[in-house]
């Protein structure tokens, strides 16, 4: 069975030949093309080649185009630092939004003036053409509140939510306008799904009501637009106590990529029971744990997760967040092997 058939059946909550698998091999793929992180992040030909090679080398069932969480913020004018061996990040000494009043200066930008987002669109276009017939390509987009925090700094933005909520909402609304055009262009490449990273929709960060108010209502518009193009909406959130219910209500996702147990469940078995027929569950191997886990422990964790979630389809084995960018590929190979070994229907 081709990955696209396997994943297609899985997303319809049917049992395919086996559980699909994709440890989120993103930044680590740069090693396969001998590229530095800055080159991999900014040269989309290199990035595409890396994604193609890693997909082939590990029989990945999904390509998820996560580059870094600064892609969108950079195009709004945030200065970004590109370290040699880790993901790009905002220059914390030079945030674009320096004062609470600066939120009101944020305006929507056009994609023609957005080199990093345009690069990501090109990446998706190339991957859909080169791999899309066999492997589903999922475009990764950061949520509007997350993007705003990259331009202000998280601590300041979280306090601003209390100090001047309307100013923050102005920024989120402006970013949302841009993201609507962005998802239009991504959908036009032929990707079957767009994954929105709603980083703050969990107990790790803010209340459910606050998330609804400051991101939910905005990301709802983006999700609606994605569906208008016939694309599936997927969610990624690696927070603790993730708000499945609020996000399902507002975004109607086909799948949720998660790491921790949602706030309204007490076990992973309950997650399957409560949400397994509503959304496809993607996860939830902890990436940091892979750094110290033995091979046997990784096999066992994968087996345990597969046993918990595989019945009736609707489950993809994956890491709950990006695979460690500087780890060897050994653990990734084990994860894929485990899906083939334990995930058969």
């Amino acid at each position, binding site marked *: 069975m081709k990955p696209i058939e396997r994943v297609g059946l899985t997303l319809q909550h049917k049992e395919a030949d086996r559980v699909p698998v994709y440890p989120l091999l993103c930044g680590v793929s740069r090693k396969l093309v001998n590229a530095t992180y800055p080159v991999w992040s900014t040269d989309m030909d290199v990035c595409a080649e890396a994604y193609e090679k890693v997909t082939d080398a590990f029989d990945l069932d999904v390509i998820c185009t996560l580059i870094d969480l600064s892609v969108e913020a950079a195009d709004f004018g945030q200065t970004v630092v590109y*370290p040699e*061996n*880790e*993901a790009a*990040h905002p220059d*914390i000494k030079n945030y674009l939004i320096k004062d609470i009043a600066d939120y009101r200066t944020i305006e929507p930008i056009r994609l023609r003036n957005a080199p990093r987002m345009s690069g990501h669109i090109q990446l998706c276009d190339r991957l859909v053409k080169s791999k899309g017939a066999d492997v589903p390509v999922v475009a990764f987009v950061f949520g509007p509140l997350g993007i705003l925090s990259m331009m202000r700094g*998280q*601590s300041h933005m*979280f*306090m601003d*939510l*209390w*100090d001047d909520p309307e100013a923050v909402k102005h920024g989120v609304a402006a970013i949302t306008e841009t993201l609507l055009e962005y998802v239009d262009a991504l959908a036009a490449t032929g990707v079957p799904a767009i994954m929105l990273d709603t980083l703050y929709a969990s*107990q*790790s*960060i*803010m*209340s459910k009501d*606050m998330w609804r108010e400051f991101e939910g209502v905005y990301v709802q518009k983006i999700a609606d637009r994605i569906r208008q193009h016939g694309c599936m909406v997927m969610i990624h959130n690696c927070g603790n*106590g993730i708000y499945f219910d609020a996000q399902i209500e507002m975004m109607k996702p086909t799948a949720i990529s998660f790491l921790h147990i949602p*706030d309204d469940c007490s076990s992973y078995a309950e997650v399957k029971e409560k949400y397994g027929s509503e959304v496809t569950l993607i996860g939830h191997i902890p*990436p*940091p*744990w892979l*750094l*110290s886990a033995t091979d046997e422990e990784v096999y066992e964790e994968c087996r345990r997760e597969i046993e918990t979630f595989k019945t009736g389809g609707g489950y993809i084995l994956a890491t709950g967040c990006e695979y*460690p*960018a*500087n*780890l060897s590929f050994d653990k990734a190979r084990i994860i894929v092997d485990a899906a083939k070994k334990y995930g058969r229907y």
Partner: protein
Amino acid sequence: MVLQDINQALQRGDVNGVKQGIQEALDSDMKPRVILNEGLLSAMETIGVKFKNNEVFVPEVLIAARAMNAGMELLKPKLVETGVEPVGTAVLGTVKGDLHDIGKNLVRMMLEGAGLTVYDLGVDVSAEQFVAAIQEHDPHIVGLSALLTTTMGEMKSVIQAIEEAGLRDKVKIMVGGAPVTSKFAVDIGADVYAKDAAEASTEAKKLVQ
């Protein structure tokens, strides 16, 4: 009554309310230690419990911490005048290469709320800077934070540098951050792993007893 006002204002993150309450309390000759313990610290303890129970979240804790700091600015000179000693001292920082500060800031706030004096070295802190801060401040606790899998290994380098400087026996080392686990803490030779800021506070109180 004024102590309750300070307590409530701090929990709301109301900087002006906290400052006004403290000034009022000082003007009425209330002892600084009482204002600290029953006004500020008890409020922070309540915030800590609510945070642990998911009744308040990071934004609420951050504005409460800001109100606490504003209150302490006003109160600190009076505490020094009256000879009130902190219960302990901690040096905190996010390790080199890592720029995330929320978790570390929450820990700082919780430790300050527990009555410790905290020297916050910020983010992207090198092993040498940790060693220098230990030599300068002679803390009971050194807290290391990391959010990334690419930087958590730096914690081991910090501990090695502390050992090489001959300071390991003088401090207890606490580690935490999203990717950090208790197993990792043991592997790198830390004394304590704290899974969140509330636990860091609980553990810190035990360490300085």
